[in-house]
């Protein structure tokens, strides 16, 4: 490895150690906050470096080995702040909200997750209003779109059915209006399924767009999914068809090649 590249690797790894990219993921209990983070950053496989918190408020730092630069393994970290029990118990909520007030100003980006089927938004609206002053720029994520009525997710292509798709468009407009207006900025609202890896690319773009410009490259390095993960769930395709599609369409989604450096 040349001196330039060694300096590059050390510089990046130092930067992550000093101030890892930090996401605050907020939402009621059971909306799929952890599965969303796991799907985007592979944190289920990653080692949780540390956990601190009160009750079930967590601030986890995950060690992630980035393979985004081909042939180049970089030791990166991602910090996730999360209250998995928010909305379960009014006595505990005050503690969670106090913790969020402490941690939110230190976050690069907030991801507010709601379940697509949940039409009762008063609790979310209340929490957003309470935290409004400390919320960084964020994204509203509408998860669990596969559970929209009439529950006919199309397994052949791993996508919402036509009927679900029509309902989904109305849900996005509704949540954008009912939740978005309480945010300090006008956040993007993105519907997705963490379970099926459907539309995660749009969610990831919205997150990067919300992150401070000088820190966006750090999020790019810890991205751990590709469109192939979504294609893998399309049961109407053979493996050969999936491979052909990936080869034909997904060439831009392979990370970065270092071939030029070997010349």
């Amino acid at each position: 490895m040349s001196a330039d590249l060694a300096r590059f690797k050390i510089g990046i790894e130092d930067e992550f150690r000093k101030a890892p990219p930090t996401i605050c993921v907020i939402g009621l209990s059971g909306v799929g906050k952890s599965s969303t983070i796991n799907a985007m950053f592979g944190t289920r496989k990653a080692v949780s470096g540390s956990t601190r918190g009160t009750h079930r408020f967590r601030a986890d730092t995950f060690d992630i080995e980035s393979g985004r630069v081909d042939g180049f393994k970089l030791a990166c970290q991602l910090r996730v702040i999360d209250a998995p029990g928010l909305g379960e118990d009014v006595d505990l909520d005050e503690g969670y909200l106090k913790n969020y007030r402490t941690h939110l100003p230190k976050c690069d980006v907030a991801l507010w997750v709601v379940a697509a089927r949940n039409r009762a938004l008063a609790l979310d609206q209340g929490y957003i209003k309470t935290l409004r002053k400390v919320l960084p720029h964020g994204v509203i994520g509408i998860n669990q779109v596969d559970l929209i009525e009439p529950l006919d997710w199309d397994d052949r292509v791993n996508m919402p059915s036509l009927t679900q798709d029509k309902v989904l468009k109305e849900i996005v407009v509704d949540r954008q209006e009912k939740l978005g207006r309480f945010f300090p900025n006008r956040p993007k609202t993105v519907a997705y399924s963490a379970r099926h890896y459907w539309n995660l690319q749009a969610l990831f773009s919205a997150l990067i767009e919300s992150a401070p410009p000088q820190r966006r490259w750090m999020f790019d390095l810890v991205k751990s999914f590709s469109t192939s993960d979504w294609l893998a769930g399309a049961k109407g395709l053979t493996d050969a068809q999936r491979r052909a599609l990936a080869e034909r369409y997904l060439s831009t989604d392979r990370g970065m090649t270092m071939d030029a450096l070997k010349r």
Partner: protein
Amino acid sequence: MSKDKPIVTQPEPTPGIGSELDGLPPELRDRFLQQIEADQGEVLKQATLTEDSWRGYLANLFNLSPNQATFYEHLSMQAPALMLFVQCMFGI
């Protein structure tokens, strides 16, 4: 088969959109392809969104001017291997 005729092995046909999505109704196939294209559009958008961020970080790391006009010139002189990396990364 005549012994005079050489056996010619035909190459496997290159899969086209049709063969990749055989068995799917046309309207479903269209929606599916639209989603793939949308996903790839997002991947390109991510590359655009992070490019300046990377450039700023590298400029800082190597004490270079973040000004785009001079950035590559300095980088190619002071850190040639990294310059190749940057070319690679951004497809320059």
